[in-house]
Structure formats: structure tokens, C-alpha cells
């Protein structure tokens, strides 16, 4: 009986962890508010079950080849006694802005590994239109092949997975919806969608509803992290978030 109970508990805790970076807007137009609010969470997006997030190692914005750190402007936001983070950034000129975060690796005792999700989201200011397909230079990174803002629900999204700047053949990509609508999955298999990239690391995903979607290409990092005298592998995630809108 105890074995059965343990199996059930284990099975119900297999939701995917996702680092998030989400902004209050993905497109900034002339005459609109140019201040971008950014929120950072470590969560199970579909289930809306937060995890505690330490202050990240790095958080910033990338525009036209230049990184600007936002680490000093980060503020902790407590939700259900768990930490999430927020920051703000005032956009002053046309461009495509990639907001990114590199979190402190999280130790997952059940899997005996560290999880490090290098995560980004992309904002266009004033119709700049260029730079959304440029790598920031993260160790693991998803490069959009479809413009990652101004997508409709139902659009097909394509992207390429890179590790150390090179395509990852057959990369496994987990996809989850940031479920603020209270949607119910038919069963747990529907919570995290799984896709395989081709030999060039390219994958395609249709996005059936409006809202935030997260893509996590997971790979084994070549570095290990020591904890209590033992070396543990690191699951390195290239994570991208984008928002679709309903076609009305």
C-alpha cells in the first residue's frame, strides 16, 4: 500500500518546472506607455503552482548587441510566502528588446540534479522589426524563426535550439501554457506538451489559445555543480516565453 501511495505521489509531482520572464506588453507603439514591467517566476505554469525563486545570478535586457543589467533594480515580490521578482525598464528608442534571466541553479532532490533555465522574452518598440532572431549569447538559447510578438492564437511558432551557439539536433522541447484562465487538462499528459526538434534543432509548435506560452528546450550541461561534497548534473534549459492574442 505504501509503495502504491508513493507511486501516486511521485506521479502527481511530475509537472514541468519553468523559469519565466514575462512583460506587461510585447509591443510598444508611438503614444503608448514606454515603461515595461517585467516579472520573473519559477513555477509550474499550467498548474499555477509557484516555487521559491532566489535573486537571479543575472537579469537584464539585450538590444542591438548590448546587454544592460537590471539586477540592481530587481525587487522581491512575495506570493504565498514564496519569492518572485519584478523590475521595470523605460524604453527610450526604437528597437527589439530581449529581457532575460539566468537564475541561481535550483537543486531538485527527487531527480538528483540542478535545474538552470536561461530564459528570455522579446519586446518590440515602435515597429523596429529587427533583432528578434538574434541570439543574446546565452549558453542555451531558443532563437525564434517566427516573429515572437504579435502572434495570434492558433499561429504556428517555429524556433531553433542552440547550445553554446550551435544547433541542438533532436532537442526535446517542453511547452506549457501559463494558465491564468483556469483551464483543466483532460489528463496530466496534456499539461506539458513535448516536441522534438529536427537535426538542425528546429521545432514547430501550434499555439491553440491566447495568452503566455513557454518553451523549454532541456539538455544536459557539460558542467556539474557540487553540493555537500557530491557532484550533480545540471539540466540546462533554453527557455522562451511569448504571448499570443485572440483574433477578434
Amino acid at each position, binding site marked *: 500500500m505504501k509503495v502504491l501511495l508513493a507511486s501516486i505521489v511521485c506521479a502527481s509531482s511530475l509537472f514541468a518546472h519553468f523559469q519565466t520572464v514575462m512583460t506587461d506588453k510585447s509591443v510598444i507603439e*508611438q*503614444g503608448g506607455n514606454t515603461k515595461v514591467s517585467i516579472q520573473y517566476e519559477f513555477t509550474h505554469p499550467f498548474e499555477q503552482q509557484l516555487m521559491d525563486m532566489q535573486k537571479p545570478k543575472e537579469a537584464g535586457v539585450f538590444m542591438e548587441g548590448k546587454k544592460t543589467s537590471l539586477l540592481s533594480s530587481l525587487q522581491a515580490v512575495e506570493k504565498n510566502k514564496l519569492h518572485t521578482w519584478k523590475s521595470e525598464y523605460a524604453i527610450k*528608442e*526604437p528597437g527589439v528588446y530581449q529581457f532575460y534571466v539566468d537564475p541561481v541553479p535550483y537543486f531538485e532532490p527527487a531527480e538528483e540534479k540542478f535545474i538552470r533555465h536561461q530564459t528570455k522574452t522579446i519586446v518590440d518598440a515602435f*515597429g*523596429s*522589426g529587427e533583432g528578434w532572431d538574434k541570439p543574446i549569447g546565452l549558453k542555451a538559447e531558443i532563437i525564434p524563426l517566427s516573429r515572437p510578438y504579435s502572434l495570434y492564437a492558433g499561429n504556428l511558432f517555429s524556433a531553433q535550439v542552440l547550445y553554446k551557439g550551435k544547433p541542438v539536433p533532436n532537442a526535446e522541447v517542453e511547452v506549457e501554457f501559463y494558465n491564468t484562465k483556469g483551464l483543466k487538462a483532460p489528463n496530466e499528459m496534456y499539461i506539458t506538451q513535448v516536441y522534438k526538434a529536427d537535426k538542425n534543432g528546429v521545432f514547430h509548435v501550434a499555439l491553440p489559445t491566447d495568452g503566455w506560452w513557454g518553451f523549454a528546450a532541456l539538455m544536459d550541461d557539460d558542467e556539474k555543480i557540487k553540493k555537500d561534497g557530491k557532484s550533480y548534473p545540471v539540466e540546462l534549459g533554453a527557455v522562451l516565453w511569448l504571448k499570443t492574442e485572440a483574433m477578434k
Partner: protein
Amino acid sequence: MWAHKINLFAYDEEGKLFVQSYFTKSSPCKQCTVKLLDANQKELLAFATDDEGKASAKLPSAEFDIIVEAGMGHQTQTHYVAQSHTKEEAKVLPSDTPLDKMLLGLVIIVFFFGVLYWIKRKPRHA
């Protein structure tokens, strides 16, 4: 070229309007006509962008429309509310103009001598 969509970025500082127009960031709208229109769509000002798609002009009023024309029917229009346009710039106070200052000075002089005349005249009536 994104279906030749013209984009417009405008801001103002210290009473001056700065306009940047482009198809994509690296493809400027060169030598394009910029028009500033009032609420009745009457032209307040017209000028052209340079080869970087940039132009600047003194703010004509606190609010106006900006139109950028690139020919062949391609244009973009936006309503603009200036941040650095002050009432002092919009309406010069009467006391600030030399003519009004002269008139004010004359009134003061006439008033001064009027009072002096009234004081001197008073004992004669008594």
C-alpha cells in the same frame, strides 16, 4: 521591408520635436515629408527627414497630428501630445512684450503725476 509599413518614433525635449521614421530600424524613410497638422487637419508645419530618416522642428503647439509621407500612398499618421510644451511657450504673457512694458510704464507715470496733481490741488479747495 514588411509590406513597406512606415513606422514613426517621435519625442520632444525643451520645446523641440524629434521625429524618426523607418520601414525597419535599419531601413530609414529617407527624405520623406513630415507634416504637423492641427485639430482641423490644417497644416502647421512641413519639413523633410534626412538620410537617416530623422528630422526635428520647434513644437508648434501642445497637441497635433504627425504625418509622414513616403510617396506611392505610403504614409503613417499619429496624434502627438507634447511633453515639453509649456503654456509660456504657447502664449507669451503681455507684460513680457516690449510694447506692453512701455504702455505699463506710461500708465504708471500718468498715475504718479495724477496723484501729485490731486494732492497739490486739494489745499486750494480747502
